[in-house]
């Protein structure tokens, strides 16, 4: 959890966002996360079993935002366990592998799972990973049109080449921040998200941990 270092400087943060990565096994969820948090890439990165937790503090529009990133196992049999963590997620990154048609066609299934288990206000984002590969079978246009159909923003990325990886997390964080701000305008305490950010501010002074 190298992200702790960033938060450990005593400056605290302005808000916290819980973000989840989901998608089929082997699409590169952990690789995206490790690239983003630790700026490393290992093609034979280890399998995620159950749920892994990482943290990184980023700057969004001049505000320090602490991202709580939950990485999930892709195998079907973990679904009942991972969905327990959808609770309170403000952002969900839905990942598929552009070199694997099956992972792309399963996106709709994942989308359904999200709708069943996540908050209505959760901000989603569709990501086609491994865009550096020559063996691509899912085109950018296909990804884009699926995203349009589901009403999600869309990004293609490569954890290997570090293409668009930061964009994924920053785009999502900004979208979430906008939602929080608009919820605040609508009336404080209206949405769950607003409550959380208020909570987060309270906890800001003693934030030199996780």
């Amino acid at each position, binding site marked *: *959890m190298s992200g*702790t270092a960033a938060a450990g400087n005593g400056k605290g943060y302005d808000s*916290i966002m*819980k973000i989840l990565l989901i998608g089929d*096994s*082997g699409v590169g969820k952990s690789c995206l996360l490790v690239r983003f948090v630790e700026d490393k890439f*290992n093609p*034979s*990165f*280890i*399998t*995620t*079993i*159950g*749920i*892994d*937790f990482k*943290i990184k503090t980023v700057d969004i529009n001049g505000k320090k935002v*602490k991202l*709580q990133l939950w990485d999930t*196992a*892709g*195998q079907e*049999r*973990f679904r*009942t*366990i991972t969905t*327990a*963590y959808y*609770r*309170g997620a403000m952002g969900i990154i839905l990942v598929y592998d552009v070199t694997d048609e099956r992972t792309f066609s399963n996106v709709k299934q994942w989308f359904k799972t999200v709708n069943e288990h996540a908050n209505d206000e959760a901000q989603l984002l569709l990501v086609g990973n491994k865009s550096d590969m020559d063996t691509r079978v899912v085109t950018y246009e296909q990804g884009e049109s699926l995203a349009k159909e589901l009403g999600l923003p869309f990004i293609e990325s490569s954890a290997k080449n570090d293409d668009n990886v930061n964009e994924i997390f920053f785009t999502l964080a900004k979208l979430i921040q906008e939602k929080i701000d608009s919820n605040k305008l609508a009336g404080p305490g209206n949405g769950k998200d607003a409550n*959380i950010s208020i*909570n*987060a501010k*309270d*906890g800001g002074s*003693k*934030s*030199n*941990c*996780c």
Partner: protein
Amino acid sequence: MTDIIFNKQLLRNRNVLGGGRSLEEKFLLHYSEMNGKGPAAFVQKSLTSRDLPMLKYFAMNNSGDMTNALRKEVWYTLLNAQLPSTKMNDADSIKPKKHKDEDQVVLDVNRSFGALKNLSQKERLRALLQKMIIKILRKYPQLNYYQGYHDVVSVFVLVFFERLNKNPTFHSIKREECNLLNETMDTDNDVIEPGIANAAETCGDAIDEKDTKFVLDETKLFRCIESFTLLYLRDFMTDSLDFAVDQLKMIPYLIKKMDPELYQILHLDKIEPFFALSDILTIFSHNQKPYEDIGSTEHSIIFFIFDLIISTQSMYIPLIIYANLVVSKKATLLMEYDLNVANFENIPDMVHAIIQKVILTQTIFDDENCWRSLLTEAKINNSLIDLKHIRGMLNPYSVLLTTSVSHHQLELQVYDLPYILELFDKEVVLNEKCKSFSANDRQLFYQGGRSSYNRIFYFFEKHKTIFLIYKLSLFLLVFAITVKILKDGHLKKLVARTYFQRLHHYYGTIIDSSSTRKRLWVDPLSRLFKSAKYSHIPDIPSSL
């Protein structure tokens, strides 16, 4: 059936310890007799004399003395004795049909041994790992692969790989792949089965002596994995992870016994202990890789944990270790709790995050003293396991209540394959039945009869025949009425001069009589019965 299993185990558990001290003395005596020759000579002697209790005792207490060359012999001897091979688990039962989970296996195998620097070693290990897992799945197609099983199997692969590593003329494993389905499962490893020789010939190359040795070792490796999977990991391999989650529930149970305060503070009564999932499913081998560099691996704590599980035949070991680990880090956990209590959206998230941060750090795994004491604790903490209580927390066919129950007796417990497969089939059926249940509902179901809600539920499930009898009697009633109607001509005749007519008559005549009105509500029937036909029945006192 359940009761039989359970009582057998209880009896076995009562037989514990009796001769423990004497074995210790015997062990020390043997050990000193072999003075200067070292553990290798000791193990060799126990192997040749097939002194299983002695080997068991050695594996329980002398992990640190074992090299992997010794370890694999000890593991093989113990595991092979626990589930002796029968005709049924010989080569003819290997199904050539592809298992549904093989694609997932390939995905995970390709991500295994990532930390190894030697590329060719890595490739060989991966090929061997894949071969072993697929062989198990094809032989037992009813088993479902779970992510993490590959981590457990890779521990066995690493222990057995040592010799291959030292053998420069070792053939590429890929070439061996073509033998996969022809290979005879040799169980008596001192004999070269003709099947193996034939299979090797089909591959076109004559094999030299060293390679033969390798093939034999691979057979032993497979037997170890097979026995370990069936006796210790079954619960994780049904169609869902429900029974794995049940096992996880043992962790809060143990923590509550060790430190009720910590249990309360971490809200372990309210949250699902999913934070421990990867460590329990993989017996710590996912988060703590036993290798950085092959050769320096023999003292890995992971091997010690496996030594203890295999020798005590107990899958409580990882659960007890985990609970002890949490309790031993209480101070740090409480500090983290205070720091983070406002940082998380909900309590389960926070507890997961702080436990992951505190428990799964490399520094803890590197702290050998900490682990030595954890292992010792795990050995002596069996008293925390109250089987009577645990029985209501687990499905009756769970490994924790059948084939890997915590015990310290000297003799190895021996199981036969048909019994194990029957247990697994029952787990599969139960898993289907409980699929829509939450973990808590499942526990209620296992407790069958303890709570009133569950008593009814369990009764329905268990006594389907009684309800069949009810149904049958209802059917007979309807049948009898139908026959009566057919006999009398029509329904009106059946009821005409009977009860209903009398009732009508009664209400019609007494409704005006103020003296009887009161009794009308008290007991209309008693008056009815008083009429001529029923006059022999005594009147019921009006005070009623």
